[in-house]
């Protein structure tokens, strides 16, 4: 990590050098370092491969919004603007959030004893207007992202086929899945540590 690069989790929680939380994070140095390396590998990789910078920041901005995480939303909105996203994409993300709010986790289990725990909830399908603004590839990614965020136990192979049909490659789907999964981690670390720091 370059000395000039600030740690994103520290920044989002507001952890200052020399504080109790700084000392706590220092006790798990590899977790701290590699959370940051993960962030860098997802948002400023050596090679963007099959997923553009706009797509990466758009998905992150959407996930932060789905979590009602204001500071994280602002952080990725800045990244999205810097990635060169069009106004149409940025407007469509707001529209997607307005039409897809939910509370998770929910979803179904394989038929059997766990069926008693099946919990109903929405499966997001982007409206025609939102799809137009996002483009087909990103709209498909948002639908998949919504499932992973709120009802990951509903995942099934046809959801991956829908991404392939919308122009995603197998490797691109792995990167997209890691984006959603990593954000799910980062948002919870930030929320948890912030709560801990304020509960002194």
């Amino acid at each position, binding site marked *: 990590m370059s000395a000039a690069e600030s740690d994103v989790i520290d920044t989002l929680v507001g952890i200052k050098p020399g504080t109790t939380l700084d000392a*706590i994070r220092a006790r798990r140095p590899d977790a701290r370092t590699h959370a940051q390396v*993960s962030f860098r590998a997802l948002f400023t990789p050596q090679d963007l491969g099959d997923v553009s910078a706009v797509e990466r920041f758009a998905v992150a901005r959407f996930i932060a919004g789905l979590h009602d995480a204001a500071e994280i939303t602002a952080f990725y909105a800045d990244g999205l603007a810097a990635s060169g996203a069009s106004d149409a994409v940025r407007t469509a993300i707001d529209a997607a959030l307005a039409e897809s709010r939910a509370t998770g*986790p929910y979803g179904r289990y394989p038929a059997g004893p766990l069926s008693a725990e099946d919990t109903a909830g929405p499966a997001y399908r982007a409206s025609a207007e939102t799809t137009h603004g996002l483009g087909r590839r990103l709209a498909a990614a948002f639908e998949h992202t919504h499932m992973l965020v709120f009802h990951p136990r509903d995942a099934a*192979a046809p959801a991956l086929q829908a991404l*392939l049909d919308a122009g995603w490659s197998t490797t691109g789907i792995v990167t997209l899945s890691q984006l959603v999964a990593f954000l799910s981690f980062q948002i919870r670390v930030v929320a948890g540590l912030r709560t801990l720091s304020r509960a002194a």
Partner: protein
Amino acid sequence: MTDTTLTPPAHTAPTVFTRDQLDWLPWLEPLAVEALTERHLAGLVDAARAKSPYFRLLARDPDVLGARTRTDKDIFYNPDAGLPRAERELAATATSRSNGCIYCASVHARFAATYSKREADVQRLLDDGVGVELDERWNAIVAASVALTATPVAFGPQHVERLRRAGLDDLAIADVIHAAAFFNWANRLMLSLGEPAAA
């Protein structure tokens, strides 16, 4: 090349949470063992992981996989104080039970049972779900993990208070937060890129 999803071979899907050893069958093509480059192997971290279709699928984005694995190892294996390993595994199990990841829950329930020697309590968490009554310290860890797993996140000062009353210091509470947060990462990959099968 047009990519396509895989149809797993005939198998028995588990329909309950279990501590049994399960297999995991991918829905997308992992990299072939012979196609792994230096960079892929660096992403796998442990060479033995090349045997796993899960890790060979994630190796398609090797830098992210490598960083994910190193984050995971420090959260769960770092022996420097904080939360005992058994209770880090309890948080991972509770998170997986809440999200509904039968595969992840099986692995980490085995670890939780092994390290705590409380097989019956771990099994009740699997059988009855995250509302189960264990003891106050375990109840507090399970409740905190579940609140962290909710979207939007529902973890609040009352969870910190309860963990402190149960005897956790702030490093241990930070370990609960990281263990639950990490399984919100792991569950989503395991659930969405393939499926569990009875071994």
